Every structure is written in structure tokens, then in C-alpha cells.
């Protein structure tokens, strides 16, 4: 597979794996029937993401994208997190093969779903 060194590193030893019990934002995308699936757990305090964790079923690109995205999210404001795009994840990974772009899109969508969940809870 045409993966960068960075993708392999994050796949081999992904950061922030697991369920975050004290999360106050939760996003979930994908389905086993159509493929990859990601769960995103965030803990937000005073408008800042203090903690981020994930669970992913998917290929190496999906796992590495989840790992990098959770790294990037920590310390971001909600507004910054909302603006997080898969391109940024790809850049951080040193690129992804064309056929694997969709795996990083899934992670972006999981982040967005978590932020929507957070906002819904504030109402």
C-alpha cells in the first residue's frame, strides 16, 4: 500500500484510542454494511476541547486519520474544530492515496457530528 511513513506510524501506534467516559460531545458516522465506522468522543470546557478520543473500524487510513484528527482537536476552540477539514488531516499525515481520501472525510464528519451533539446538549 502506498502509505506515507506518518500514516504507518499512526496506524501502528494510534493516539487517543478508546471511549472517553466523561465526554460531553459524541459523534458517530458510518455503518458496518457500507464500510468504515468511527466514533468521536470530546470533552469540551469553556469552549475549548480538553480531551478527544476515538474508536474506529476501518482501514489503516481511517485509523491514522482518526488518530491525527484527535491530536489536532485537543486545545482547539469550538469554532476552530468546526472549521477542521479533512485536507488538514491529510496534510498532517503527509498525504493519503487518492482512493483513501474518503476515509479522512469520514473522520471530519465524525467531528462535525460530535460538535452538533454538543450544541444540542447546550439547549
Amino acid at each position, binding site marked *: 500500500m502506498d502509505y506515507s511513513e506518518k500514516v504507518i506510524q499512526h*496506524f501502528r501506534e494510534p493516539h487517543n484510542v478508546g471511549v472517553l467516559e466523561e465526554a460531553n460531545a459524541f459523534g458517530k458516522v458510518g455503518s*458496518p454494511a457500507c464500510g*468504515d465506522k468511527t466514533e468521536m468522543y470530546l470533552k469540551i470546557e469553556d469552549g475549548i476541547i480538553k480531551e478527544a478520543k476515538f*474508536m474506529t473500524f476501518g*482501514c489503516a487510513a481511517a*485509523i491514522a486519520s482518526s488518530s491525527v484528527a484527535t491530536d489536532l482537536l485537543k486545545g482547539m476552540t469550538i469554532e476552530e474544530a468546526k472549521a477542521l477539514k479533512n485536507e488538514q488531516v491529510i496534510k498532517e499525515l503527509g498525504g493519503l492515496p487518492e*482512493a483513501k481520501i474518503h476515509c479522512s472525510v469520514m473522520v471530519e464528519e465524525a467531528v462535525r457530528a460530535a460538535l452538533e451533539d454538543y450544541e444540542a446538549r447546550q439547549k
Partner: protein
Amino acid sequence: MKEVYLDYAATAPIDLDVKQAVDEANEKYFGNASSLHTIGQRAKGQMEQARETIARYINAAEANEVYFTSGGTESDNWAIKGIALAQMEKGKHIITSAIEHHAVLHACEFMEKMGFEVTYLPVARDGSVRIADLKAAIREDTILITIMAANNEIGTIQPIKEIGEIARKRGILFHTDAVQALGSMPLDVQAMQIDLMSISAHKVYGPKGVGAMYIKKGTEIENLMHGGAHELRRRAGTNNVPGIVGFGKAVELLKQNEAVYVAHYTQMRDYLRDRIENELDEVILNGHQEKRLPNNLNVSFAYVEGEALLLSLDMEGICVSTGSACSSGSLKPSHVIEALGLDENYLHGTVRFTVGRQTTKEDIDYTVDRLKSVIARLRSMSPLYKDSKNS
């Protein structure tokens, strides 16, 4: 790092005796087998000996029923396109199965584009073609049945003797892709009533880029390659004499040692299967459990994704293949795995292990040891696994 090769169905390393025969042919039999002079005829002699060996091994009535090609892909393409074009006056319907190799499926799809109709028979959960389905699919205008002898992914052996009998009775030509079957199960073109059969050298420890097709005498078939008068005017192109000599040697080794090879494959495969079944949870074995190739084990591991599994094993030096790919847009199981109708939790976590002559018990022990930790690691990240434990 230790390297364990468990992908012999993709290709096998060349046997050292075969390599020696190829090397010798490259030096001593470099002539063009079509040349009339001594050096050309010397090369031809070697080639004809290989043809004889292969013809005898598959029980062809005559050596001239074996035509050398560039491999399994060419043979499959030739069988389908060549028969379709030669028989289109009689009809334009072809029957195949949903789990054929792409060399057959894509050739069939091409013929559909050319105005032919193709029926893709479904398979049972174990990968077998059902004879009743085949009988029901036969029409007045059916000209060709092409069903593989054994499947490359899941190892299931098809009832080709029964299929051959039905085809012959109905006056329909029968082609079988025996690329994976060669060397792992008996192939007798007369007893099995086969009209055309594809085989390839590199799956039986021969050189890459050489194969053959058996064509029963009297079969009308169009050429794929047009040019010189090689292969009884049926397949143009200067013969790959060293490759052909190597193929002949590889088949000679089968003739001598097939039982020993098969016993070894079976022993290694069964040992791997038993350890996986006993030591890992939530796995299923794919393919028919008795009527299967002796060197093939196909396993689905629930809640993990095949490519991640393959890559993780590769990082431990273990080479396998997967029936799952995450490519443009989505995760997609192979057409073979898709045809089996697996539960969705198992659908994407399929691995094919194929053992070979060099496989040792230590290789299997190492593999199972690493496999256990790889599966545990991937499941620890998998939301599907977590949900299954919570519910």
C-alpha cells in the same frame, strides 16, 4: 525480521529444479522453435517434450491439444472470446458463475458489450455452484459454460465432472479455469468431459508469464493472437521456450510428488485452521470445508477490517491476502466474498492464508501467535466489537 509467506495462491517461488531447467534452456535452447535449422529444432524438441508431459498429466488424448500461452489470464480470455466468436452462429449465450476470477468475469462482461448474453450463476454459502441452477440456466442458444475447477479466494472445488457431463449431453462447450486446481487435485480432461482448460505455471512453482490451454481436438475456436503459424496456427508469437521448459519441469515434479505435496499442504493448513478455531473467538471459515483446495484457508474475523489486518500482519513479516478493500468511496468485499452472503460483522474482515511447499509448523506457530495480538489490538479500537460486548 522473520518473514512468513502465506500467499502461495498469489504466486509460488520457482522450484530450484525448475529454475535449473529454465536456466539451461536459456543457454542451450535459445533457438526460435519455428526455425528449421538444428538450433531451432533443438528448442522445439524441448518444447514438445514439455507439451507431452503436460498433456499426459491432464490425460489429454493428444499432446497437440495443449497450446502454450502467456498464462492463465490469456487462456481464460482466449477460451471465452475465441469460443464466443467461433460459435456465435449457434447462439450468443454464455453461462458462468459469480465467483470466477476476473480474467473470466471481465472477459464475459466484454462479450456482453459485444452483444452476447451472460448468466452469472449464484453460489451457495459454501461457494459451490448448484447443479440445479446450472440446468435451469441452459438455453437453446447457450454455447459455452465456463466454471472454475477451484476458487482462488475461498478454495471451494466445483463439481466440474457433473458440469462436464451436463454440458456434453446438451452439446455445449465446457471451459474450466483450473489455474488454482492444478497440482492440488486430480484433473482428467477426458473423464471430466472438459473441452477447454486454462492452467498457469507460476502457481505450481514454475516461471511467471507462461501457461497453457487444453483445447479438445475438433473444437472450433477463433484466435486471439494473429500472426505467425505457431501453436498449430492457433496462437501466434515466438514461443517462450525457457518458460515452457520450466512449466514442463514443474508439471513433471507434480507427476512425481503430488501426493507428498498435497499431504504437506493439508497438514499445514489443518494445523493453522485448528489453532485459529481453538484460540480465536468470533471467526468463521469460508468456503466448502471438505470440497476445498488443500492449501487454502479463508477466514473471516468479526469486527476488524481486512486491509488493516493484512497491513498489521505484514508489519510482523507475515504475507497474506484479503478479500476486502477500502477503495474509492467505501469498504468493499471482493465479488467472491460478496457472493457468499456473510453476516455484516464478518463481511469486511476476510483473510486468505495459502500454505505451500516451504511452509513449516514454526511458520504457522509464529503466524497464530502474532495473529492473536493483531486481532486483539484491532478489536480494541473497533466500535463494532465494543457494541457487541455491550449488547
